[in-house]
């Protein structure tokens, strides 16, 4: 039999084929989604920014089963998706759980349904950071990010001694890990003076264009 044009083929996007449906019967639509992704819900925001559809999560919990931080979180990755589905903005965004995610991507790698919880959590953190500078984040983590970004903006690179110092200033935990400093210095692991890159103006431009909140004016 000669090769046929239409049959004996895989019909990819078509779940079935053959005779037409009779009037009044509906055809099977597979690709059309009627989920709102233009509105102002959290789900819509996530979908707009990332292209991911939070409605895909069917709460199997595989993400949370593998999450190294699950034991310390109030909302585990699958809870995050659930709260998005229910649009519980306040509850979700004010908690500290979001900030405990290490972005180890275990959830994303194992999610059966392509929900990419790691990216979703990053998106939510960015939202919070933009809205209120990360209020709700654990103080130490917030301070760390602030110091870190500030460092980059100032020097273009991370100068760890300065980073540690800045972070300690912000958290007031001046003396934790302080015993480590001599050892670090001895091993040549801490430089005492920052390296500034030449293209600092470029870095500032990037920060400005990205509307990153870390401006020089923000703190002394």
């Amino acid at each position, binding site marked *: 039999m000669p090769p046929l044009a239409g*049959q004996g083929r895989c*019909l990819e996007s078509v779940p079935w084929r053959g005779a037409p449906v009779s009037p009044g019967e509906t055809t099977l639509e597979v690709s059309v989604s009627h989920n709102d992704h233009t509105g102002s819900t959290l789900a819509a925001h996530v979908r707009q920014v990332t292209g991911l559809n939070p409605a895909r999560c069917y709460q199997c919990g595989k993400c949370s089963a593998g999450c190294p931080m699950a034991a310390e979180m109030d909302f585990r990755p699958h809870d995050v998706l659930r709260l998005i589905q229910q649009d519980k903005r306040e509850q979700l965004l004010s908690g500290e759980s979001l900030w405990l995610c290490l972005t180890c991507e275990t959830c994303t790698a194992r999610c059966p*349904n392509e929900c990419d919880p790691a990216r979703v959590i990053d998106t939510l953190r960015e939202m919070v950071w933009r809205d209120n500078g990360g209020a709700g984040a654990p103080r130490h983590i917030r301070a760390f990010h602030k110091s870190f970004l500030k460092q980059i903006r100032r020097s273009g690179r991370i100068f760890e001694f300065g980073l540690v110092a800045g972070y300690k200033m912000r958290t007031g935990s001046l003396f934790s890990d302080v015993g480590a400093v001599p050892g670090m210095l001895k091993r040549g692991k801490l430089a005492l003076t920052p390296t500034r890159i030449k293209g600092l103006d470029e870095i500032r431009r990037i920060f400005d264009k990205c509307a990153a909140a870390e401006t020089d004016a923000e703190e002394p």
Partner: protein
Amino acid sequence: MARIGVFVCHCGENIGRTVDCAQVAEACGSFPGVVHSVDYKYMCSDPGQLQIKEAIKEKGLTGVVVAACSPHMHEKTFRKAAAAAGLNPFLCEMANIREHCSWIHEDRARATAKAIDLTRFIVEKVKRNQPLVPISIPVERRALVIGAGIAGIQAALDIADGGREVILVEKEPSIGGHMSQLSETFPTLDCSQCILTPRMVEAFQHPRIKLMTYSEVESLEGYIGNFAVTIRKKARSVDDELCNGCGDCQSACPVKKIPSEFDAGLGKRTAIYVPFPQAVPNIPVIDRERCTRFKAMRKGKKKEVCGRCLKACGREAIDFAQEDRLITEKVGAIVFATGYQLYSIGEEQPREHLSGYGEYGYGEIPDVIDGMQFERLASASGPTGGRIERPSDGKEPETVVFLQCVGSRDPQKGIDYCSKLCCMYIAKHTMLYRHKVHHGRAVVFYMDVRAGGKGYDEFVRRAVEEDGAEYVRGRVSRLYRAGDKVRVCGFDTLSGEPLEMDADMVVMATAIQPQPGIESLAQKLSVSYDKSGFINEAHPKLKPVETNTAGIYVAGACQAPRDIPDAVAMASAAASKVLGLFSNEELERDPCVAQVDETTCSGCFHCERVCPYGAVEHLEVRDRGGNLIKVIAKVNQGVCQGCGTCQATCPSKSVELLGFTDAQIFAAINSL
């Protein structure tokens, strides 16, 4: 000269309310070639039809146009009336002035004008209609069933019991399929082999069933009622006439450590083997990949090595020189019943777009097994004689964890669908396990329990309520070795807490997939399949066991995941379709098929390229001396379905679709 009669129907008020039917009839009466034009309240009524019949006879009409409802509604009615009056039915056509006119317009003047136009189109067309005679095709009343699992066996038995011959082709050495591997069956817990084996024997002994095991379909030609199928009978290396199934060759075979396919790798077999003791036919086959003698031959060794089976056989049935044979059979219908396989959990996947489950360590951790392996462990005929022993050290496992949905409902790994059976067989596994190991724990990680079926939900409830299966809602993230145990990292989404536990054995309910190679078989048979490889039925509701190639039917798990009752029901349905087809000696077909003009065809075969049915054949045109002048296209009218794509494609317009010729369509356009 054409003598056309026009009959305008009022359809009660349906047409008459917005279309002035009398005016339409009057206008049509003035069209050239129209010799009779009337309107009437109900053309489809007996008196209406009588008017048509009488007019045909009295006026000697050469064509009839009924301006009424949609041809989908009454074309058959009026054609029958025309035929009763001696007019070829294909000279009768309808103009649709109801659905396409009176029902969708309110302006009477414009609706009437449109009705006149629509009727004129058809009048002009009918003037050029030719009398056509339905095509009749003889039916070869024998069936081919591909795959001899429970679906194939059932279909074959039903067709054979219905009085027709069946060729039952199975690629494995024995019939029986996956059902023969199962321990017990849900929801009744009756022994699978006990209910299957009699069926296998019945199929084997049936006078109208020709069994061809260790055979595969090589190619298919022809069309409904007239298929010619070529079957490859693979070399068994054992003469099935001489062999009496005594088993001496197996005992003699020195290669004894081959993982047994039947025992899902948990047991061992020899290189010459019968897959399982109850195999039908009970004739061994030599696994040429593993046999010492064939290995040596492949390496080019001249000396004949081993040959112990040859010496052991008292009937001289061993035949190392046997070769594959190709056998062609004529059949009129085909049942596609090739069944399923389980998703392989490891990294290597039979389908390239799928990825495995590295996080579950299948193949690395010996005590992580799949559902079919558990069936073999639980089966009385299995490698452990029905004792539940874990593969690593043979210990009786005290905690068994079952994972549902491994591979199913997992678009990321490439399978979107629910495999349907796993919820049920995992519940069955927990019961079998708890019945055998009373103090053991059976823990099931699930997402949803889907137990729609007679007695199914009750069955699952019994596993939980009476047999103490513990159900945890959540997927497991990872399995790894913890000493001699398997650490299970899961999450209980109902309590909202991470759940880590150590199991002695883990059983995974892996997804149901079609057999490997189903795509190429489907291509040979020109039936379509979905992206997972499952065969597409012709209509999801109304034609569930037909494929969209006429004469080919589908049954069992090659169409979608199916449990035994479903597969058997489909098989019987397919068999009844086949028997229905075979109840006639000839098939009648609509004669609106394509026809090639031999004088102008240039043989470029554009038509062949676009034909969805492979209906275009090559015709050699020779002169009187027998010299080849040209090769041109010829349409096999038994295969052509009348879409006309060839005609639109033909650059020289040398193909005509009868009933919709260019002349007919142009006539309609020209009458604008």
